[in-house]
């Protein structure tokens, strides 16, 4: 399989802030690649470089074999893209917006516009002005815009932003359909790990401008380690005790009254003993399967529930 996207030792700084540091990865044709990382990791900067909006300070970024900055016109024929918080002309209808962008690709195909509006479930509101659209509707219109001109590669930056659970479910089904039935290559950045886990063949995990891990999901899932959910009588005290146990990393659990613990070795008995000895009641200690979320936390050190807890490099306004 040939690589549609090739990123080699890509670096980018904004003033003194280093946004990307020798980032390398590739996306093969027909592949669905998840691009993960906490806020400020450099995901959007990478995507902006791929779209020809920024150019890297070092390294290369190519789409379809064409440099994204110096040969942008040719590279851009390969992809359709949506960026976080998609922009549209609010004074035009959704359909007219699509016509505007379709004209940039060649003669307008009205049938394709109608089909795309139908595909993203926007037929009923297609002739309303975009300024009256909700964020979710804008996201769906952005997807239709990205699919104009039948691109070979779809670049999606946080496409689930603003979508309700039904919308997210619908998007997942749609993307899977596009990938399997039309052989579309999808490069997909998201915070929603469950989406990435269900949709992607491979993931690239970015943190502070560096690639922390990259590979097929099945391989990443096999990383050695353990995860426990422990229901306790006192969460704060339990966290303090468990963090003192050698090799254990503890975070508040998603369920009230529970903590989540990850460790490289099986230390269940050790943790249980420490808690009980300290007078913390343990109602339940369950060893769960290690998921993408755990790998993400392990690689980035950022809990999924609080992605803002890691310092975010400030990007100067251009």
């Amino acid at each position, binding site marked *: 399989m040939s690589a549609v996207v090739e990123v080699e030792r890509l670096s980018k700084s904004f003033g003194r802030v280093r946004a990307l540091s020798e980032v390398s990865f590739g996306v093969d044709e027909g592949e669905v690649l998840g691009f993960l990382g906490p806020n400020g990791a450099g995901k959007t900067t990478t995507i*902006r470089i791929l*779209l020809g909006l920024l150019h890297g300070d070092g390294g290369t970024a190519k789409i379809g074999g064409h440099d994204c900055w110096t040969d942008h*016109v040719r590279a851009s024929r390969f992809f359709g893209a949506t960026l976080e918080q998609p922009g549209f*002309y609010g004074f035009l209808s959704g359909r007219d917006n699509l016509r505007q962008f379709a004209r940039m690709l060649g003669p307008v195909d009205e049938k394709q516009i109608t089909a795309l509006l139908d595909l993203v479930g926007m037929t009923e509101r297609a002739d309303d002005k975009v300024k009256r659209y909700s964020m979710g509707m804008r996201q769906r219109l952005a997807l239709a815009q990205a699919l104009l001109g039948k691109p070979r590669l779809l670049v999606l930056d946080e496409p689930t932003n603003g979508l309700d659970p039904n919308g997210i479910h619908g998007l997942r089904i749609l993307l899977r359909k596009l990938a399997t039935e039309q052989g579309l290559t999808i490069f997909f950045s998201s915070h929603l790990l469950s989406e990435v886990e269900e949709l992607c063949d491979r993931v690239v995990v970015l943190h502070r401008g560096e690639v922390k891990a990259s590979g097929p999901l099945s391989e990443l899932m096999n990383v050695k380690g353990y995860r426990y959910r422990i229901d306790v009588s006192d969460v704060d005290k339990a966290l303090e005790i468990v963090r003192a146990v050698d090799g254990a990393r503890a975070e508040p659990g998603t369920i009230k009254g529970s903590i989540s613990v990850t460790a490289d070795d099986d230390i269940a008995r050790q943790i249980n003993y420490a808690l009980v000895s300290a007078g913390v009641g343990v109602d339940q200690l369950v060893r769960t399967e290690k998921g993408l979320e755990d790998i993400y936390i392990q690689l980035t050190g950022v809990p999924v529930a609080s992605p803002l807890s890691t310092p975010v490099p400030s990007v100067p306004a251009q």
Partner: protein
Amino acid sequence: MSILPSLIRNELEKTWRSRWIVFAVLFGLFLLIAAGLYAYFVHLEHRWTPPAAVAWQSQLRDEIAANQQNVAGLEQVKQQTQQNGGTVRVGREELTIDQAIAQANQAIANDRYLIDHNIAPVQSFAIAQASLFALGGIIMFLLTRIFGWLASEQIAGERSDRTITILLSRPPSRNQVLFAKAFASFLISLVVVLVTLLIVYAMFSFWYGSPGSLTDQAGVAIDGAKPLGPGNLLQMPIYLFVLMCIGAAMLGVLCVQGMSLLISVLTGRWAAIGIVLALLFGAPLVSTVIAGILFLISGSQDSSHFLNYIFFNVLAPVGSVAPTFGNSTAAAGSGINEFTVEVETLAVWTLGFFFAAWLLFRRKQEAG
């Protein structure tokens, strides 16, 4: 190249759909002014129909008769006072009686020359007056500010709306995007200027009692401060004069659009609009204040003449080609020579703005 018409169409559609109200208000305003002037005419002349047209030769003959009377009067004063040292005020000048007589005789000779050679002073034509008034005065001052505002949104607006990411990530090159925006802005302004000129022409045609000829020969002063006559005369068909005025006016518009595009490349919507309007309204004010100070210091209006070649003073070079009303001489800094220098200055500014905008836009990084 085939994508360019589509891009231009996109820009025209966006401008029209987002700013149609501006054009509607402008058009309504012109119609309202025309209606007001018509009402004033009816009140003043007690008639609903245009006055009878007067041939330019008749006007010049009247002027000759008036000057002959003037000379006779001056001769009489000279004989009565029996002295040559007395002075009379002619316009803004203080002249001796002999100088005033010589000037009046020169005016008579000039007018006779024009009649004998069938050269009409350019102000005799309704279309020329309309061109000078619509393309060189307050109307153009306001229109250039509106065009500047619209052009300042061209890229800055896309940035604020976040549509710049789609615009720049699609196959058209940045050069094509910039050209389409500049061309569409120019096209819209050209239509507005031509419609304005037509409305003003209709008003002047009514006032003159006839639309007048479009093919006759017209004479324009080379130096506006001197009377129109042999040695100070550029002769051209009137349609060429109108085309020259339209060209110069549109160069002024293009210059403003170049500056606005340059600012638009660098900032967001509100900053761009604010900077452009502050420059376009503020700079002429500053220029006027400087001219006033220089006049107070030197006592001569020529001391501030160099200001004519600064960008903001040459936005409407048509204003310098001839005095807007009447066939009299104008102040220094008018006439075809002045017009030519201002157009050249404007062309340099325009090229500079567009070149800078192009250079910056093709390398501009959109970090979001």
